[in-house]
């Protein structure tokens, strides 16, 4: 499932909020030459990123550091996934070997070819999409590597993860390259692309599990509590976001904050999208589904628990033995008539 970042709160590497255009104006990185395209350039593709890739890169960096006795080193690797028209889905990644020749990074092509053969066998529907590295904003050295990658695949993307950043935002940037005329010569520049987090249900559960690390003593926490806790955390986030928007709007009303028409338009359309589903038919179907499920579920459970503990077990079974099909239905109906009243009251 994919979701757009809410306008007032999206921040990527400290750039001003934006939803669809590449944000930064000229960025100077520590005296080095600037390699970012001017802010008016808009990216041509949309990107969705799976959390697995983020974990892969993180592990690559951590293990390289651990093997080198704590020294931090830049790591480089390839990203693979699927592309459909102008949309890229980055699903997985693997490491690449490189050598430093005359202060410049040279990618080992043979190693890449070996890995390409391997991943084609297991992930046949994925293609090579680009490369990743660690660091802050793109540098001329990245342009140099990017040019080499372009020889493998014509329009690669670059994914940069900054392992040293401490704030709460995801320190990831995705870039594509364009050729532009700078000082009357053709140079390659980077354009930042917006990305969303793609996900798959099993991945989400895995990430959730690892993030909250509830591996110890699973049997002691109730399943209901765990499920409700995760819902509660999500709702808390929703609440904080909504509060943020409300605060901004109130401040704009008072005159304390600058009015951004785009942000206000988004908030307005958000309010008018609620309630999400209104037609009468939905309400009826929804009630019906709730009743059906709760009735059948409770009936099933109660019938079985009650009758297992019953002393007249043998008798009851002899009685109903001759009527297997209708027996279960009858019991369910009995229970349902009793339960339906309570359930409807409880939930609505």
């Amino acid at each position, binding site marked *: 499932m994919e979701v757009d970042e809410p306008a007032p709160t999206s921040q990527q590497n400290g750039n001003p909020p934006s939803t669809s255009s590449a944000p930064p104006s000229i960025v100077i990185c520590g005296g080095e030459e600037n390699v970012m395209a001017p802010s008016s350039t808009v990216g041509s593709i949309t990107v969705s990123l799976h959390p697995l890739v983020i974990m892969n890169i993180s592990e690559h960096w951590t293990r390289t550091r651990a093997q080198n006795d704590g020294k931090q080193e830049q790591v480089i690797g390839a990203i693979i996934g699927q592309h459909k028209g102008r949309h890229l889905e980055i699903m997985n990644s693997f490491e690449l070997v490189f050598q430093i020749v005359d202060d410049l990074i040279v990618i080992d092509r043979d190693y890449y070819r070996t890995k390409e053969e391997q991943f084609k066998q297991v992930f046949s529907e994925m293609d090579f999409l680009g490369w990743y590295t660690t660091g802050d904003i793109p540098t001329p050295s990245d342009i140099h590597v990017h040019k080499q990658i372009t020889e493998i695949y014509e329009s690669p993307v670059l994914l940069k993860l900054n392992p040293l950043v401490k704030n709460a935002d995801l320190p990831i940037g995705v870039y594509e390259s364009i050729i532009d005329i700078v000082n009357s010569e053709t140079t390659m520049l980077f354009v930042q692309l917006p990305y969303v987090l793609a996900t*798959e249900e099993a991945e989400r559960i895995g990430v959730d599990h690892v993030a909250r690390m509830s591996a110890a003593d699973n049997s002691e926490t109730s399943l209901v509590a765990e499920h409700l806790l995760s819902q509660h955390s*999500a709702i808390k986030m929703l609440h904080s976001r909504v509060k943020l928007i409300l605060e901004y709007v109130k401040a704009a*009303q008072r005159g304390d904050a600058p009015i951004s028409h785009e942000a206000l338009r988004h908030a307005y359309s958000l309010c008018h999208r609620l309630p999400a589903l209104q037609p009468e038919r939905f309400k009826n179907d929804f009630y019906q589904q709730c009743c059906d499920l709760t009735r059948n579920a409770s009936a099933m459970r109660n019938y079985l628990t009650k009758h297992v503990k019953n002393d007249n077990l043998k008798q009851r079974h002899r009685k109903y033995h001759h009527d297997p099909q209708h027996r279960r239905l009858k019991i369910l109906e009995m229970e349902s008539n009793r339960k339906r009243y309570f359930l409807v009251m409880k939930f609505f």
Partner: protein
Amino acid sequence: MASGGNGTGTAGGDSQATIAQRTWELSNNIETISAVDEIYHYDRQQQQDILTTKPWERDPHFFKDIKISALALLKMVMHSRSGGTLEVMGLLLGKVDGNSMIVMDSFALPVEGTETRVNAQAQAYEYMTAYIEAAKQVGRMENAIGWYHSHPGYGCWLSGIDVSTQLLNQSYQEPFVAIVVDPTRTISAGKVCLGAFRTYPKGYKPPSEEVSEYQTIPLNKIEDFGVHCKQYYSLDVTYFKSSLDRRLLDSLWNKYWVNTLSSTSLLTNAEYTTGQIFDLSEKLEQSENSLGRSGIIIGSDPHEKKGEDKLAKATKDSCKTTIEVIHGLMTQIIKSRLFNDVSCQNNRSPASEAIDVVMENPS
């Protein structure tokens, strides 16, 4: 327990939430590796020493627990899920530390039909060796420490074929562990369904009757499960992550909460739930038949006991399905409350009113 300790409005609430999280983690012995992330360092000499002494040969119950890295878990889950209803398999890379096995990474193998033949891995030897060789060049120094495969929808346990494969592995590739993942149950239950097992050598009788957690097994697999379940034992599973992982996961939550709220497990699991109910009805028929029989033979206690046992198990199975369905329903009701029971037309919310005012006076 506050996993949403970031992105909250007030600073006071933020630090309280993080304190609560830390206290909870401490009290639950969560493995937080130190800043140097020691576990990621591969000590070749230490590993070679362990391989020469082979302490597991003398004690079939030598390995007691297993630590799996966050990355390995995600990769296994993703790979299993991508197989759909087909079983997939892969290899685990890691090392040994005392009585624990440590799984650092995993990778998929291009093998099919893993539940139909013993040692399906043999087909992929070339791939395995090439992969491990290539991995060493990028700092992945660990060797193969086990294999994993998926049981989509029927639980985490070793089938007869799996036991034979694992016995073979434990004769020639020690130390080796077998991990089983169930991606379907992971999704339906909302929590990771994974088990790590080691087989006992042939003829070995485990000293004590281990009480293992009850699992729902579909009817067509119950016999396979029952025949072999005493031939192996499961290891305690814990997961670990690096300090960078932790920071990234916390940041990830800032965007991920939307997916948690918008997940619809009723829809995703509809097919699986239906399958479970069919299975349950068949089990009820079976237990009914065995109880019916006991009515004819008066005072035949073993049959009665078996029938009641079956019924008790069917009860547990139905409880599990019920709980999962109710959880799905809870999500739907929460969403309905949040997004449907708010009306913008009838009672104007303060936010939309404020926006109206501001839009009218752009100053």
